[in-house]
């Protein structure tokens, strides 16, 4: 296990009481506004001394109140993207970016600054100071500063909230790369289901300071009862391998022997990926559909049918590619006469799959 957190702390409003061991990778903290996410991150960072608890990263203890162990923040080797930016106003963007490196141990593995700067699109801002930057520009610099700090643990508190979709799509793969290649543990706070689906290795759902749900991303996301994400976040996560890049701009994936098509992704043939299929986007059919624009059709059998809140239901379908979830109306369940064990087809639009639902290593040229 890579990130082990045990915390107990009383705030005037809420009592924090958490205990989770997350595997290496990205641990997403999920929860409504005011549920205690930032407080947890601050405790891990050492900016707040909780009443009691213990935090360890890859077995390296950051603090343990029982052992009276307490590493000050600057010894924790963090890269922290704050919810409110916190850029140094007296330093240029360039100096802000290199700040962490001034203090990093000599041999520490370091990101390539040029690459990070290019990815964040802040090359033209390097000589300016934070005061004149737009909200999104500030946030991008803050992300860059944390990423370049040569850290052993990355904390990111809603890092992408202020950014537009296009920019998000550019930055997300970077966090994935950190997770997969550099294998830095990442504690990540977000309200966005897409980010969770894409990044999360495991998810901790917070409510009023308590971890109400905790598990691998695929499990938590498949659970319609996960309140914070909202019903739209429910979806299945499949293991796939890149099979072929087609000339018409599509990429073919091999999912347990079945082919899935989606718009070209920048991964190499043979790469193993995770792909999230939002339940929302899946249509079920009780006969093999014909003449449809949707290219992806998975044959399978109905596994379970869970009536959700309101008029909807979540139908889980066993396919050779893995379990696929579909969110459809109860009326359709009746109309199609769906029952556990019944043969059916899951129809998935090609464009529904890309790009923000694909996770995996990106090899940039």
């Amino acid at each position, binding site marked *: 296990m890579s990130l082990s957190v045990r915390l107990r702390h009383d705030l005037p409003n809420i009592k924090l009481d958490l205990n989770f061991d997350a595997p290496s990778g990205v641990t997403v903290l999920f929860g409504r506004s005011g549920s205690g996410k930032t407080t947890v991150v601050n405790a891990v*960072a*050492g*900016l707040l001394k909780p009443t009691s608890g213990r935090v360890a990263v890859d077995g390296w203890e950051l603090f343990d109140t029982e052992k009276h162990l307490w590493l*000050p*923040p*600057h010894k*924790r*080797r*963090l*890269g*922290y993207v*704050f919810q*409110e930016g*916190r850029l*140094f*106003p*007296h*330093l240029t963007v360039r100096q802000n970016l290199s*700040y*962490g490196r*001034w*203090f*990093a141990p000599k041999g520490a593995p370091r990101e390539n600054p040029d690459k990070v700067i290019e990815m964040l699109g802040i090359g033209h801002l390097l000589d*300016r*100071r*934070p*005061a*004149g930057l737009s909200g999104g520009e500030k946030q991008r610099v803050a992300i860059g*500063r*944390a990423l370049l*700090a040569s*850290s052993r643990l990355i*904390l990111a508190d809603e890092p992408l909230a202020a950014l537009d979709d296009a920019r998000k799509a550019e930055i997300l793969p970077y966090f994935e790369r950190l997770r997969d290649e550099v294998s830095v543990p990442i504690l990540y706070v977000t309200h966005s289901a897409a980010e969770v689906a894409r990044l999360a290795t495991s998810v901790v759902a917070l409510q009023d300071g308590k971890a109400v749900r905790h598990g691998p991303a695929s499990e938590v996301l498949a659970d319609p009862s996960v309140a914070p994400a909202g019903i739209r976040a429910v979806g299945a996560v499949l293991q796939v391998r890149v099979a072929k890049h087609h000339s018409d701009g599509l990429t073919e994936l091999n999912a347990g022997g079945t082919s899935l098509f989606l718009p070209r992704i920048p991964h190499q043939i043979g790469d193993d990926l995770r792909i999230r299929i939002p339940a929302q986007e899946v249509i079920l059919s009780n006969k093999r559909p014909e003449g449809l624009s949707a290219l992806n059709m998975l044959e399978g059998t109905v596994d379970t049918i869970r009536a959700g809140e309101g008029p909807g239901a979540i139908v889980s379908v066993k396919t050779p590619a893995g379990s696929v979830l579909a969110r459809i109306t109860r009326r359709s369940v009746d109309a199609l006469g769906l029952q556990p064990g019944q043969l059916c087809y899951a129809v998935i639009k090609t464009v529904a799959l890309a790009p923000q639902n694909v996770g995996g290593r990106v090899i940039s040229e």
Partner: protein
Amino acid sequence: MGWLGPEELEALRLSLRVSFWATLVTLPFGVFTAYALARWRFPGRQVLNGLVHLPLILPPVVTGYLLLLTFGIQGPLGRALSEVGIVFAFRWTGAALAAGIMAFPLMVRAIRLSIEAVDPKLEQAGATLGASRIMVFATVTLPMILPGVIAGAILAFAKAMGEFGATITFVSNIPGQTQTLPSAVYAFLQVPGGEAAATRLVVISVVIALSALLASEFIARRVAARVAGS
């Protein structure tokens, strides 16, 4: 400055030297004290605070007399220091000590207020990026309070240029050693008809102190603009 006699010129030079060194040497102590008062909670904090302010509250003569008792030839500290070659009594260094102590509260006040205006969240950010307490101070706090430090230093310099009561009581008035501009001004004012000469010296010291002040405003504004990033 053809209209200054050699003795007056000497006094001017001495005043500048005394004020300069008084400011320079007290500055690190001023920054440290201000930081301690602004950011740390320790027993005796209010005592330290009171002590720092004493020279502002006491009549200067009293401060000078206390200095004499402490740092004079017979004073406990004076004797100890003279063993290691540091002598204040009747030296320009003593004048600098007196000026520095009289200016200290002003300096600390100015710096302290500017430290209190720095958002501790920025210092936290520095810490998460690996900077130790001292490095956070050097790379975040200090650059951000620089306008306040400059203001405080120049204020102290101006005050030192005008200091008289404590200085003359502590190190008296020895031409070329401890006779600063204000002592000279005082001497002129004691005798009938000395006003003209006194005025001349006052004008000089005012011009110097005001120039320093304006320069500090200018520097502080530049630094502040840089810090604010505009």
